[in-house]
């Protein structure tokens, strides 16, 4: 079987000389595509993409963040609650504390259309996900770290926050709400 060729036998001579025409074509296409993808990920989309999130991260203890969220709820709470979660209506331009905890997002936030808010998002137990639907903005929520991200609602309506990181047996019930009013 010495004259066999294929993937199961050792190539004869040096496999790269001469390099076949199709191999040269394949290799150059792969090389060009690799460079193009690299450029898209690191240079093109960050410059022209309008869905890029820019955010800052800070360290914070889980207990401290829970206290800050509670203070925020007491300060700006409307007194109402939605399914047992307090509703807050923070003034435009202010900081919004949003705490992910098994298995809810506290509080329910009421925003005004066209105003910019700085969301400070963290978890006080395990890792969670923040997925704003139907706009599909996705962030990771990690205990011990604040994620600060600026959001400007452009349309009124109700937005759902879905936890998209498995966080325990009640994960599928973990929903939050952002309401945007005029």
């Amino acid at each position, binding site marked *: 079987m010495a004259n066999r060729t294929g993937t199961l036998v*050792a190539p004869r001579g*040096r496999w790269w000389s001469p390099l076949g025409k199709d191999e040269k074509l394949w290799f150059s296409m792969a090389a060009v595509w690799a460079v193009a993808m690299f450029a898209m990920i690191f240079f093109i989309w960050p410059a022209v993409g309008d869905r890029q999130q820019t955010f800052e991260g800070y360290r914070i203890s889980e207990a401290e963040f829970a206290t800050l969220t509670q203070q925020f709820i007491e300060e700006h709470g409307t007194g109402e609650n939605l399914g047992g979660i307090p509703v807050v209506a923070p003034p435009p331009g202010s900081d919004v504390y949003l705490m992910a905890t098994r298995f809810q997002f506290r509080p329910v936030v009421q925003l005004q259309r066209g105003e910019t808010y700085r969301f400070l998002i963290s978890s006080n137990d*395990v890792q969670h996900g923040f997925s704003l639907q139907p706009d599909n903005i996705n962030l990771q929520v990690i205990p011990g770290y604040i994620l600060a991200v600026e959001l400007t609602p452009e349309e009124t309506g109700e937005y759902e926050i879905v936890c998209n990181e498995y966080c325990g047996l009640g994960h599928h019930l973990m929903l939050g*709400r952002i309401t945007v009013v005029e």
Partner: protein
Amino acid sequence: MEALRAGSWQCQVTGLKVDRSAERLIQFNAVTAVLYLAAGGIMAILVALTRWDAIHIISDPEWFYRLVGAHGSAMLLFWILFFEVAGLYFGGIVVLNTRMMAPIVGWVAFALMIIGSLGMMVTMLTGRATVMFTAYPPLEASQWFYLAYVLFAVGALFAVILFLVNVVGARLRGEVQTLPLFTFAMLAAAIIALFSIISGAIAIVPLWLKYRRDRLCRSGNLSAALLGSRSRRTADQPRGDGRHLVRAGDNHCWSEADQRGAQPLCLRALHLLHPDGCDTPYSGRPRPRHLGADDQYQLLRLPPCSAA
């Protein structure tokens, strides 16, 4: 044509001399892989039929998560790694037309992988590890889950190293010069597997030790458990030698009297791994895996969004 070696037979189609111990290992690993593929596939069907609202075959969310976790591990770890190991032995020994060195290591690897994968499946399906792929802190699984994980990883590591040893050995014996493409591909896969298994072990081993320690700290039974006597002395019960084990939940593993007393060697070893040992109060709270009556979690249901 040279004479056949003992313990091998010649394939009539390819003319390759097939080492019998390699053949057995390939068969065992490949069959196990396909069994895991079948199990993972059945669980995938159950998961898919649950996600399909009209059927929703599994109504218990806990069972759903158990099946998702077990399905993921069966498909992404067990099926792939068992089959890769079969491929490694095929590419590294049969294709190179050489004999197998140290087949015993292959059997040890297979045994470790079987024990580890079965241990993971059992802990996941019995609800001791419904952590899915977020097994890292602070979502906590049973310590046996991490131990099984480590055993599986070590087994796979043994198999990958055995392949590398066999390929290098065949090369040193002058039986192979340039590798056939299949073996070359398996070599690349082996290098990737080596990196990922070692980094996985680096992540999981400290986790297992930590959770083991935490669990024992919480039960207040560290010295007893480490010494191997599965003693159930917990509440302030005198041990007869003047030392007291503290209550569970007191956040200290052993009382001051215990600390001043002679520490068993295994405790000192644990201190080397975790310098803070249990001397510092255990700060984490127990993290329940189930939503039982003891859990402090509220399950809230928000009303649906009003139509936009």
